[in-house]
């Protein structure tokens, strides 16, 4: 039963992610954004199968519910016709291949270095809200705070850019 759901959600994630970047039926950016929402929701399904309910809920709440709505907001305010006509971008392809290669290298390294799954592969983080909070605010408090400062910097930067008359 678990396996069936895993394959279902994994297939959905990959299919929707593919349709985000290369949809044969439509070049509409809004359609791409909606498939990205579906990708995020199916990934939340994978988190649920790993018993990471908190992560699944936050994934939907933050990414599907807030970030993607802002994406849609921006896409709708831009000129859509120009985006639909655009064909190929050499620079984009090169940088895309380089970043994919880098990410793939990290994944391969991580997979080979992780210990092989033993006989007992059941997840240990049942209802992971408390252990996750403990870990974030004890062991990983410095990276957590640095990340929040990074977000703050980005926010201040955006406010600065959006001000029309700089003194």
């Amino acid at each position, binding site marked *: 039963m678990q396996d069936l759901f895993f394959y279902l959600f994994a297939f959905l994630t990959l299919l929707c992610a593919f349709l985000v970047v290369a949809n044969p039926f439509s070049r509409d950016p809004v359609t791409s954004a909606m498939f990205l929402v579906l990708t995020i929701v199916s990934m939340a399904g994978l988190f649920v199968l790993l018993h990471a309910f*908190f992560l699944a809920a936050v994934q939907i709440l933050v990414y*599907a519910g807030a970030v993607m709505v802002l994406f849609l907001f921006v896409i709708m305010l831009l000129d859509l016709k120009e985006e639909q006509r655009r064909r190929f971008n050499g620079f984009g392809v090169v940088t895309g291949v380089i970043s994919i290669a880098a990410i793939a290298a990290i994944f391969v390294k991580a997979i080979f270095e992780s210990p092989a799954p033993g006989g007992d592969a059941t997840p240990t983080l049942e209802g992971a809200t408390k252990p996750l909070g403990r870990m974030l605010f004890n062991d990983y408090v410095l990276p957590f705070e640095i990340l929040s400062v990074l977000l703050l910097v980005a926010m201040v930067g955006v406010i600065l850019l959006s001000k029309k008359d700089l003194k």
Partner: protein
Amino acid sequence: MDWNFIFFSAVKIVCVIGAVLTMFAYSVLAERKISAFIQDRVGPNRAALPLIGSVPVVGRFLTRLGFWQPVADGLKAILKEDFTPSYVRKVYFWLAPAIALIPSFLTVAVIPFGSTLGNPNNKMVIADLDVGILYTFGIVSLGVYGIVLAGYAANSKYPFLGGIRSSAQMISYEIAMGMSVVPLFLIAGNLNLGKLIEYQAHHGWLICYAPVSFFIFLVSAFAETNRLPFDLPECETELVAGYNTEYSSMKFALFFMGEYANMIAASSMMVVLFFGGWTFPGLTTPADALATGLLHIGIFIGKMLLLMLVFIWVRWMLPRFRYDQLMDLGWRRFIPLALANILVCATWLWWTMK
């Protein structure tokens, strides 16, 4: 797999959806009757079924009450021509009403609407999740897609503006709403809604501990359900009904149903969070008999209907906000207030724990 569990879950799902649909129909009637009362009119008093309408006292009374009006409204919505304008984006035009309706039904799944019924293991909640409240917020935040896509699909200016407005409005108030409930979970120490009710059964309703939270949650709920002081996505005077301008017959009715189902979900959420769910002073232990179990469900529904009345009452008493006032209220008033509320509550808890 436990077949007993599947069977009882299925029964609960069917009952809850049936109850929500019935409440939808009669809350529309209540809205019309109460607005009539407030504006010194009579309201719907003509719709009658052929045989029952002519029963001496009861029939006349039900007709005067408008009891059959929802039947007439429903028939009208189904039988009207379903017109699709030629310039709309067809796929999204058909999808949008469904996307608007589904999230409001999904939120009801985690709400504990009673203690137990018959067997003590038979909890009156469809899905007893440990992250209950986060699930609710996640699903509620998906509700905005229905309106945004409806605005986009219509491919004309007023619906589009309505869609854009709704996306900005709903995201803004989600933040205030999410932060307003943090103190509750600091006090109770658990995200599970069932445990929250248990806490309230022993220590009193949470509205006594966190009235500011309730105030912020209530106002944000008006904004999230697009109800009147904040119904800017469908503001008639500026946007000729906004995102649902191009919709007719049953598709329009689905948007309407979504709005009322959202109201029902928001009211039941408030009952669970602030008013002790199915508990009542003197009735705090989970039911061991069938009758007390039913009584608890009755108490829950009673509290919820009172909050629905507040929703309806506010709609007909307050004028609409202007769009910049709405944003100002959300970002510059409620978010700082909610943050201060969290800080005060956390400090107080830290102080009293020592």
